[in-house]
């Protein structure tokens, strides 16, 4: 006989956010919300960091931060965008701490591909299952990666990306444009094949 595995959202009676002092209700709502958006959040973390270990790390840290800040979350508003904003901030902070040299900006990328020093040969080999697309993504500077991840890989509209990245919509558009052009260079053989109808 078939067994139904119902996804969490929709099968559990509606979460009610009690007063800020009601710690159990707060924990409960947070857990439900986190579970409901977990897969998407993990994917965003993966697109940002490029590997499984760092993405789990990033997500865990962001989840803890989000939990501490949960009293500031407006119930009924979009939890995923709020969480993604925290994740992106966390990611950017982490980069600033880890990198000794200055952060790439898209101005350095005008048309020419720049190697991300983190994407050495071993990492490329490790990502053997990811395919050329994710490898190309890893080669992009962080803000380019973020906007491509949100719009092209996660299918979010410009305004959602703007909310998460805390920038105007116009900035989303221009960053996305330059990121796609940069990826074009990384993925040139595939782009050509696609346009000639070989793919």
């Amino acid at each position: 006989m078939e067994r139904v595995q119902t996804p969490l959202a929709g099968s559990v009676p509606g979460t009610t956010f009690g007063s800020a002092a009601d710690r159990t209700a707060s924990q409960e709502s947070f857990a439900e919300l986190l579970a409901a958006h977990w897969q998407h959040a993990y994917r965003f973390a993966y697109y940002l960091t490029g590997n499984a270990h760092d993405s789990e790390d990033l997500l865990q840290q962001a989840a803890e931060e989000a939990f501490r800040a949960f009293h500031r979350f407006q119930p009924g508003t979009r939890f995923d965008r709020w969480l993604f904003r925290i994740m992106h901030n966390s990611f950017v902070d982490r980069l600033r701490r880890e990198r000794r040299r200055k952060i790439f900006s898209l101005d350095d990328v005008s048309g020419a591909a720049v190697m991300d020093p983190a994407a050495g040969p071993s990492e490329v080999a490790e990502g053997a299952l990811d395919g050329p697309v994710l490898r190309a993504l890893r080669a992009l500077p962080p803000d380019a990666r973020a906007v491509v991840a949100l719009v092209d890989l996660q299918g979010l509209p410009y305004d959602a990306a703007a909310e998460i990245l805390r920038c105007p919509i116009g900035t989303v558009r221009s960053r996305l444009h330059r990121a796609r052009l940069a990826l074009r260079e990384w993925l040139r053989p595939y782009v050509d094949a696609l346009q000639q109808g070989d793919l």
Partner: protein
Amino acid sequence: MAGRPEDSISSVLLLGLAATLGLTFALDVRRLDAATGPAPLVQSVRARSTVAYQGEQIVVTWEGTTHTVASLVQVEHDPPDWTQLDYLALGPSRRFTVIRRPGSEIRFDPQRRTGITTTGLNSEEDIFESAHLPWLLENYGITMVPDELLGRRATRIVLVPEIADRPSRTLVVDDVTGVLLRSERVGPKGSLGEVTTFLRFEVKPAGWRKTASVPTGLRLTPQLAVRAATAEEVARVLGGPPVQVAVPEGFHKTGDYLTGEGPPVVQIYSDGLTTLVVYQRRDSVARPPEGSELVATSSGPIWVQRLGLRTLVHWSLAGKNVTVVGYATRTSLQAAAERTGITAAPRLWDRLVTWLREVMDWF
């Protein structure tokens, strides 16, 4: 008339189809006189314990929309002391024999000679007219038509429920002896669910199986010790009063029982024609039957399983697990569960804590 099994099934299906289309005899339909039960109905209940006979029946059940199970049965009936049923299941061939005697029933495989023995409950024929019949008259509309089966004059009785959540029943009762020659259950949506009918029938003199005895050398395992229980005993076993299940309309409780196997408390309900069984067990978490399907209601989770015309519904309330099984639709039993009350699903947070604690015990 015991032809090939396939012939029997197709004739059963044809008869069933004919009945559904109402293509039986275009004679007067005698409506029920509300004051007394219809005579053939009462007669058929009495005949169970008085008329001896021999014959062959076919039993067909439709389990789900595609799965049909059928069996031929050789019947020897010599009430009250002996009833023997030899089943030969059609398809994957499976033989078993049932022997019912006063106070016990044994079921065994005649080839392997292993089986079970149960001390069942007493039949309720003696309270039929005082209890079940009034309920039946309340809950079912009855029509009767003269009919014929196996060359015998009979009466076809159709019982249609007032509440459309349970099956209709058609009985063909022999006019001379009152023996039930054919029985059909049809689901609320007109789906044929169960048919039992004689293919060959012969009245025998009373006592014709006086010398019958159970075969020797059977290895029988005792099963299902059931006994009637008082309200206090039920409360003691459950650690509190039982859940008052809001059963579908028309059902009345006929007894509380304790069993030695499975959920200890069993409550039986009847609407005059069908039996609804409620099981209760003390348990802090919901442990649904294997194979049941989870359904989320607005109050909490329930688990559902269907088998032919019957439905099983299981849920948790007030520290007890409740299971209800009977000839009712899933909608009807789900509504009963919701009216009774369902414990909300344990929250994710509680589950995490419970699970972590259980794992710590494990270590």
